[in-house]
């Protein structure tokens, strides 16, 4: 197991332990859209569009009345074809390609409007991005897998005061050197697997 995942795992254990004791804790489900903002040409060449759906899950632990930490992971899966990409010209070759991106993170956020049902927040996070690429070429599987440290900033809000709370969140992440070593990302000089994500959240607070 590599260093980024050890950090995330340790944080998860700590968060779970805290959750049992702290107010404002909850389990969060999310669904939304992830845009490969930092590798747009690569995404466009391989998948025909920059973005795609994401799903995720997180544990949220309150720290007092205005702060929370959150540990979670999202999952993005994209399918396309291997290509020859020469500048603006992209030639799909018919070999199926699948890319999976799994960002795992530990966020620290500050909430505002303490007595309101609508509680905006801002925060930042650190974590790791697990990247896996697999394609099939005439019976041969070509794959690449790596994990890199990532950072992110986020802006969101939750609504509601009961057991179930709705929310929305925008995040921007960076994961330098996760790509760019070969393939189209090298051709285009794109080495960052981060990007913008927009998600709706549903939080269950016991």
């Amino acid at each position, binding site marked *: 197991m590599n260093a980024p995942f050890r950090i995330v795992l340790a944080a998860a254990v700590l968060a779970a332990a805290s959750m049992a004791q702290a107010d404002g804790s909850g389990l969060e489900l999310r669904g939304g859209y992830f845009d490969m903002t930092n590798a747009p040409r690569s995404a466009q060449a391989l998948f025909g569009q920059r973005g795609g759906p994401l799903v995720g899950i997180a544990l949220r632990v309150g720290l007092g009345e205005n702060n929370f930490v959150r540990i979670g992971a999202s999952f993005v899966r994209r399918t396309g074809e291997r290509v020859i990409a020469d500048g603006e010209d992209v030639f799909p070759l018919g070999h199926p390609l699948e890319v999976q991106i799994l960002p795992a993170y530990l966020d620290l956020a500050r909430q505002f409007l303490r007595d309101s049902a609508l509680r905006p927040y801002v925060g930042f996070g650190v974590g790791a991005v697990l990247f896996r690429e697999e394609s099939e070429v005439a019976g041969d599987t*070509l794959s690449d897998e790596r994990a890199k440290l990532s950072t992110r900033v986020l802006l969101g809000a939750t609504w509601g005061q009961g057991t179930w709370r709705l929310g929305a969140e925008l995040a921007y992440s960076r994961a330098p050197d996760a790509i*760019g070593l070969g*393939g189209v990302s090298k051709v285009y000089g794109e080495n960052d697997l981060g990007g913008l994500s927009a998600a709706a959240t549903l939080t269950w607070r016991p």
Partner: protein
Amino acid sequence: MSQPRAAVFLTTLIAIAGLGTAARVEPTRGFERVDTPADAELEAPHEAIVKFETATTFSTAMHTIQDAGGLAARRSRSGAHFLVSLDPTVRVGEALERLGRLPGVAWAEPNGVVRKFGSAAELFRPNDSFFRFQWHWRLLNAERTWAIQTGDPSIVVAVLDTGIAFENFGPFRRAPDWGDTVFVPGLNVLDGSTHANDDDGHGTHVASTIAEGTNNLEGGAGLAFHCALMPVKVLDNRGLGSFFDVAEGIYYAFRDAPRKARVINLSLGGPGSRTLTEAIDDAVRAGVVVVAASGNENSTVSFPASHPGVIAVGAVDQRKQRAEYSNFGSSLDVVAFGGDVDRDDDRDGDPDGILQQTFSGRDAQRGIFNSFGYFYLNGTSQASPQVAALAALLIRQGVTTPAGVQFAIQATAEDLGTRGRDDQYGHGLIQPAEALSGMGLNR
């Protein structure tokens, strides 16, 4: 360039061994000298190529040309160029000056000579699977390549050369190992007929590298063996031709042929020519991939390989080192295996040339065109069709523009020599399977 090249060939001695149930081949070496024309023989024809600025009628053009001392003229397929036979009493330079000053004439240039890039040849006829002697395919990972793509007859590769032994016609015979290779109608530019038969052996060897019958229990293999071949004869039985004829062959291949070529291989070269340059530019603009050998003079890359838009191919030997004959320089794009018949680096007892089918050049000089066999040749002429074949496979796989094909070949080449592109190896040694596999996000 001016030195006659010794050509070596292997004859075979078939020995019946054991109880008469097994045949064994014992190769016996023999030598034959095949001279390629010395420079002294390469005297340029007393001809000029004249280009008119606008379309003009033949009679008007002839009138204009005769005013300047031209005796006879032949119109090109493009219509704008005329090949003018000059009055032998008039110096070429003087005639060009007169022709260039005529109203409506864009420019005039001397018709020059191109020649095949000569090779030292060795004939070898094993009775076993010849594929195992084709070390170039093994080192290019051809078996993996064929798992991905073998081509399709809809992709036509034009071989502009000494012709191809593709049909039984007159004294000419079809080479034995074409298998189910498709030939589309070609052109003998030298006589205007469709019988572009090989009277030298060079063109058949080059064409066999591209699409020799493969997986047919006979002979060797070609890299794009399901692609179609178009024979276009632009070189004579000495391996010589003219700018005008090569340009004519190019226009036929991509524009006038009933089934048009997507790839043109030029295992030939000479000094620069505006006529040929225009023909190549027109072909590339029409979406045709033009591949040319860099030349065998251990010098700078020859024309037309040196022309932008043409994929210039140099040669490496079995060690993946630049062959000592291979031309180099800033316009070199990639290298492929050209071999070296003076080496035996794998110590298999055979010269490290490129083995493909063709016929004896010595016999051809005596008018015998059916001495077919499997010859080890070396040269950039042998490397160029490997790249032309890869270009055809890439087109079939979905890379549809000349620039895209060139990029795919270069971007996936094995970097040799100094890191990155260099003048000895260009972008490196082609890797057909890698090129056809394309690119993922990070791999």
